[in-house]
């Protein structure tokens, strides 16, 4: 919250000490670290979160129809041929590198890297401030992947050539 040294009272950090009684009467300061019952405190929140997600899905389904193109035809490859968006980054890589690199090494490398992450990063600190290397590496990876996904999804048209999404739209869901 602030850059100042934390105020410590009774061995606990507090935000500050103000004299007098607050206008709404004595207010209980909630202890962040205090264990509280999951029912109802967490379950109610999860219930609300679940409802929000469901409402989003039900509304999306009300307003947007799932796509259905022409029946599959082995004699005719559509142009452009688009992978689903979550593989768009891979498809973009496939247009530039040997398929063994883009189609096998990169995905395998990513999965192995993710699995190994907690065993490589043994730094016990939690705050990003004290985990600069890990946070920077992960962020770079995420940004590269998101940019590649967006390029493959929105900026590629016939024969995998470059298009501007506001001129021609070829994204497929």
């Amino acid at each position, binding site marked *: 919250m602030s850059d100042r040294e934390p105020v410590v009272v009774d061995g606990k950090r507090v935000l500050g000490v103000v004299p007098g009684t607050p206008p709404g009467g004595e207010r209980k300061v909630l202890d962040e670290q205090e264990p509280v019952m999951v029912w109802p405190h967490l379950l109610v929140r999860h219930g609300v979160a679940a409802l929000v997600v469901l409402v989003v899905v039900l509304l999306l389904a009300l307003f947007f129809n799932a796509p259905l193109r022409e029946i599959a035809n082995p004699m005719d490859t559509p142009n452009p041929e688009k992978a689903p968006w979550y593989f768009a980054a891979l498809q973009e890589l496939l247009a530039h590198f040997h398929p063994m690199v883009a189609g096998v090494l990169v995905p395998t490398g990513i999965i192995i890297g993710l699995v190994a992450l*907690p065993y490589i990063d043994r730094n*016990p600190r*939690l705050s990003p401030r004290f985990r600069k290397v890990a946070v920077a590496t992960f962020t770079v990876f995420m940004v590269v992947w998101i940019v590649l996904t967006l390029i493959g999804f929105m900026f590629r048209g016939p024969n995998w050539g470059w298009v501007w999404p506001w001129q021609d739209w070829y994204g497929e869901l």
Partner: protein
Amino acid sequence: MKVMERVRESTVGRSIWRAPDRATERDRAAGHWANFFLHIYPVKMRRKEMTFRYTWFLGVASVVLFGSLVVSGIYLMFFYVPSPASAYGNIQNIQTQVAFGQYMRNVHRWSAHLMVLVVAAHMARVFYRGSYKSPKEFNWVIGVILLVLTLLLSFTGYLLPWDQLAYWAVTVGASMAGFVPLLGETIKGILIGGDTVGSATLLRFYVLHVAVLPTAVVILITIHLWRWRKDAMLDTGADDE
């Protein structure tokens, strides 16, 4: 509320809900332990771990989306036969003839896309929170497997409408497997069950999509949540915020 209490207190009610009255915290904890669905949750957690800020509830959102996929998916299964001769027509039929068919198809499709997005976001949140650190390393690993399974579920489902999008995306995807050193052609053959994407491929993807992968996901989600529950109070506590 009154009615519910009367039911709970009846002989039948007591045989279903074993917990005593929920007056004290101790009673409530006992009730928590005695309930199959609640027992995947810890009884107590630190207040700060329950806030939106801590998890953005993305894990929960993933579970909810998976649930929505199971429900809408079962609905669709009643109207779909996985064969190149019928698949496409079945989908058209679902959209035009079946009551709420188009709507269910939409729910299934958008839940699937959202699930990929939400699971990936959940992973990112867990990373930035540092929640993969000891002793939670292995739960992170299970999470990575769940991410891969989520992608595979989406991808196998993508073929089922048997339209142009589906056919060629899977042709390209399966060819990628062909470049795995040594085993490539074998893996590709096992995936598509022939020399091009065809009826064998559709059947294989269908079985994976409605039976094998969902079962694997359910088992892994269960383990994932069970470990989360066991580790809930092990938080490193007074660490840097």
